[in-house]
């Protein structure tokens, strides 16, 4: 069997008395789109924040490309090639698109031989290239992010993840708060990236999205993995049952 790009073993995170993620195991293989599902508070976001270096796991191990990794800061994850698109933490509103794409990893050039200054020229050029590659149109690279539409923002955020040659891409609710047309565009992007063999973890509440782009589903409930399914072998009904707990589904379906 091919080696997993990402493997987490028995990953656990507690916040005080609350166990947000409870001995979670999960693998992601090259070229695969994995849907991570669960109700609000199931621990999805906490799980991916551990994988992207934002939170430190209390227990468990993370293997990336076959090697165990310990990530102290988000930068460590970024340097490994784990790019994350956060649901709530996407972009800096007052800054323009290309500054956002290069956020934290600005390109510099030498000035007077020893001082490194920002290379705005090359950052603009590179941004243009990556946005073109993704067939993303935004009015101008100089516009402040807050003047862009939701879809354009998401496109910039995805563009940022791609630019850095992501070896694993994590998308947390990438289509939330988008118009129908823009949602489709984002899903097209996901397919485009899969065709380039980039493994992707996608979190979404929109079952339509999940069923149209994923290969495999991992379902979480109360911090634990409750099921794993091959997307084409399951149905939205079964998945909903797994997300909210099948007992509850049966109770709700009972007549009266």
């Amino acid at each position: 069997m091919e080696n997993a790009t990402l493997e987490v073993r028995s990953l656990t995170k507690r916040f005080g008395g609350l166990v947000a993620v409870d001995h979670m195991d999960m693998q992601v293989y090259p070229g695969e789109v994995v849907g991570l599902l669960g109700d609000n508070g199931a621990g999805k976001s906490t799980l991916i924040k551990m994988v992207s270096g934002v939170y430190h796991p209390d227990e468990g191990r993370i293997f990336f490309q076959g090697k165990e990794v310990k990530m102290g800061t988000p930068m460590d994850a970024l340097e490994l090639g784990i790019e994350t698109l956060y649901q709530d933490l996407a972009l800096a509103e007052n800054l323009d698109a290309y500054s956002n794409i290069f956020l934290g990893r600005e390109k510099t050039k030498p000035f007077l031989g020893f001082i490194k200054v920002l290379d705005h020229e090359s950052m603009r050029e590179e941004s243009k290239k990556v946005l073109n590659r993704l067939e993303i149109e935004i009015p101008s690279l100089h516009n402040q992010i807050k003047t862009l539409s939701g879809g354009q923002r998401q496109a910039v955020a995805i563009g940022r993840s791609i630019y850095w040659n992501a070896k694993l891409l994590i998308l947390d609710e990438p289509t939330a708060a988008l118009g129908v047309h823009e949602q489709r565009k984002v899903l097209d992007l996901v397919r485009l990236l899969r065709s380039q063999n980039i493994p992707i973890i996608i979190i979404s509440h929109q079952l339509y999205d999940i069923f149209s782009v994923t290969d495999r589903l991992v379902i979480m409930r109360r911090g634990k993995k409750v099921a794993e399914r091959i997307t084409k072998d399951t149905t939205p009904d079964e998945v909903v049952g797994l997300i909210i707990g099948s007992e509850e589904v049966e109770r709700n379906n009972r007549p009266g």
Partner: protein
Amino acid sequence: MAKIDIKGESRGLTSIEALPIILVYIVIVVVFMITAPETFLGYRIYQSFMSTVPIPLILGLGLTLVVAAGEIDLSFPSIIAFSGFIFASLYKNTGQTLMPFIVALIAGAAVGFVNGVLVAIVGIPSIIATLGGQFLWSGLTVILSGGLAWNVRDVRNEFIHRLFVGRIGGVLPAQVLWALLVAVVLWFILNRHKFGEHVLFIGDNSEVARVMGVNVPGTKIILFTLMGTLAALSAVILTLEMATFWTTQGSGMLLITMAAVFIGGTSIFGGKGSIFGTFFGSFIVGSLEAGIVATGLGGFWTRFVVGLVLILAVALHSALGRSTGLSAVSFLSFAFRKQKGGDSS
């Protein structure tokens, strides 16, 4: 929708952003030239500005970066007292100038560093941490100095006096060149260097900055340390200029410095800072009192007019910024939505 490229070709447009405030400054000077020609058409008043404005200016430049990062520092007036005291007392006791100068800067930097650690590591909101610092360090200064003013008249004969507050060619106060140097360096850092970019990102949204790999606590500690160092530099300049140290020498600086920064267009919400704006904002604040007195209105009017200019300037920046160059309509619709109780992210 917004198919307008509002920004120019490069980020050098800080200069253009500050254009409204440069115009405001010119208007104010022209008005004073008309109302008080005998004062404002001579060179002496400008010479006087160039000796007094550099102090709030240097402070304002540092504060611009702190505010752009979404923080505030209220403790710098006490650093002016503390570092001024260290400089004056070491000079008096040793007769040296370089060593007291360096120790004063280190003391300012250390106070700033403590502020930074309290804010970035301990997690105390900066307004509270630095308010506490303001009381603490000015209190300590009063204790150490016995509450007395110290005359350091002899410092006028020292090289350091000529270096920082001498009159170049008998006319130009040296401190304005130092302030200019600080302005150039900080403009460069804010607009052309990674560090400045990170400051703006942190001010915009420190959580985004953090998850994107920016060292948020480290950057904040550096900012507060820088602010402390600049406050110490101001303290030395002030002590040299007056050839006196007194325990409340920084206390008038807090509000005028903040006024200068906000008049200049730096946003209290963070994510936006203008070095040019602070530069002219400082000169606006510094010119008003002299102009009002020379006009014959009486010094009582100064605060009133400074308040008026501050409110008008911030309203202007807000109108220009919110509409992002589109139109007054979008500004009004924004204001309306906000009034309806909508959350203005």
